[in-house]
């Protein structure tokens, strides 16, 4: 079985996000970018499937700006076998919308014929949480979202899903799209020899046009703003004072 893992280049989770002065989005010029953390978990799971003898090949794919090849190299250094870069934007600020990404991925699936797609449940930049689901709709494959456990046996997969209020276990038919959640695994860090090997692994470069997909945005961002800064707290001297303050604030 071949496993396809879509990975997205996003602003690094350690970076303090700054909104552009015109409110059109987040400033990404000269900012540290990394692989979307949920996608790292997907890559890790795919490699584990390969190590367990349940997958033969792990193919990482990224759709975005040319610099996404760094993200793909990270996936290759972790252990993916090869990578496909689909250049769909020139400006680092262009976010390809989930539907366009799903359409391109569908085209890649037609070409590559994987038995499983493992993707992150969402990207930490826009939190859309949509690509996996849209891809399942476009392909007509089964979907298991928010996976915190995954077990593949023959032509079905058992997926434990993290849902509000607990865990739900479902059994789905393969081929399938599985979107992964935080607790599925702990991704490995790349070793130096694997980083060196990754530089020599195949990385195909294509464009969105090669797949005939129009990536023009359908959504318009009206405004982006920073969260309100938290107001300084106040230390109260006694329970009575606390109760009085809470009443004053209308919280009691």
């Amino acid at each position: 079985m071949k496993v396809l893992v879509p990975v997205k280049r996003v602003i690094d989770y350690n970076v303090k996000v700054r909104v552009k002065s015109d409110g059109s989005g987040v400033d990404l010029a000269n900012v540290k970018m990394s692989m979307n953390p949920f996608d790292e978990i997907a890559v890790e799971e795919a490699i584990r499937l390969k190590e367990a003898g349940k997958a033969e090949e792990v193919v990482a794919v990224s759709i975005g700006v040319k610099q996404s090849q760094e993200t793909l190299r990270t996936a290759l250094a972790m252990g993916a076998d090869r990578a496909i870069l689909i250049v769909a934007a020139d400006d680092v600020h262009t976010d390809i919308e989930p539907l366009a990404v799903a359409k391109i991925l569908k085209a890649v699936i037609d070409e590559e014929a994987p038995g499983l797609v493992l993707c992150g449940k969402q990207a930490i930049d826009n939190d859309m949480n949509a690509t996996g689901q849209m891809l399942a709709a476009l392909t007509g494959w089964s979907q298991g979202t928010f996976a915190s456990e995954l077990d593949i046996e023959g032509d079905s997969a058992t997926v434990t899903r993290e849902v509000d209020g607990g865990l739900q276990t479902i059994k789905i038919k393969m081929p399938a799209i599985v979107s992964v959640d935080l607790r599925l695994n702990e991704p490995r860090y790349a070793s130096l020899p694997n980083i060196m090997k990754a530089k020599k692994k195949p990385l195909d470069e294509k464009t969105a046009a090669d797949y005939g997909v129009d990536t023009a945005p359908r959504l318009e961002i009206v405004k982006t703003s920073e969260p309100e800064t938290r107001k300084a707290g106040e230390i109260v001297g006694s329970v009575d004072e606390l109760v009085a303050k809470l009443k004053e604030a209308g919280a009691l």
Partner: protein
Amino acid sequence: MQDHENDEFQDIRDAVRALCAEFPDEYHRKIDEERTYPEAFVDALTRAGWMAALIPEEYGGSGLGLTEAAVIMEEINRAGGNSGACHGQMYNMNTLVRHGSEEQRRRILPRLASGELRLQSMGVTEPTTGTDTTQLKTTAVKKGDKYVVNGQKVWISRVQHSDLMILLARTTPLSEVKKKSEGLSIFLVDIKEALQSGMTMRPIPNMVNHETNELFFDNLEIPEENLIGEEGKGFKYILTGLNAERTLIAAECIGDGYWFTDRVVKYVSERNVFGRAIGQNQGVQFPIAEAYIEIEAANLMCRKASRLYDAGQPCGAEANMAKYLAAKASWEAANSCLQFHGGFGFACEYDVERKFRETRLYQVAPISTNLILSYVAEHVLDLPRSF
């Protein structure tokens, strides 16, 4: 960790950071408190291939340059660790790779790459001659197919946690050479064997958790196949290690500098006194900004030194200047970090006092600030010699 744009070494940085993240502040604090060696950390670095970065691929390493090695060391210190526990293998490596024989390379390098052996020690400094290296008193006299070593070394680090040491000794008496830098030779010493046959070791308790020792040689026999390069040219060869050491330690200071500025920026932004963040005061901001500027500048010089080194060009001046700038910058950063943590800076649980002690070393070792100034004055600017 402060925002930093991606640079060309991002893959290395990310991977080293991810490894270091498994060894949090508490780990390094405990190691310091107990004055033990960070075995688990160095093992993890070895297993992930980082300690073999400089070993050519044909001998099982990754064939990277000093530039990448500097990035690795920087990231370790930036993550709160202390590369002092393991940088010896990085700065010694090219002495063996560049000047060792093919037989020595084949015999040693694959075992260093696999982690079976460690080459963490370099024996240069002596108690009576200090920085005046060419005057060193330790002798190695050829007898048959062996060299017999007598003398004494001091401040020789990581001997208890290394298998091999590169030793500098005089093979031709000073009175018989034309230039004082001639007649010195370097040897590969098997530490475990040597400790049974003529070398004794006395650990030196010190201000930082840096395993370092006095060594005494009483007729230690070294087989002639462990002479590196040609006899008498050891001073030239040892410079390969010394220039690498200065450049790497510059990178470590830069890593420390970022650690200090990251920590102090966070602290002064959150600490409220007189009803506002202390970081709002320019008296607090400016020393931090100044240190940061100096770290960034030192970084440029460090890169220049490592690029020259990797190109096989002379880099003594740049390596020295990088170490000077970086050690000064990290010290300024350390000082402001400690100062603006107020009393909390002295509490071990903030790690500031530990890093403060660790980075202070680098104004003295591996070469003191004064000696760099005199090197630049007399060897770069051609001012009259003072000694």
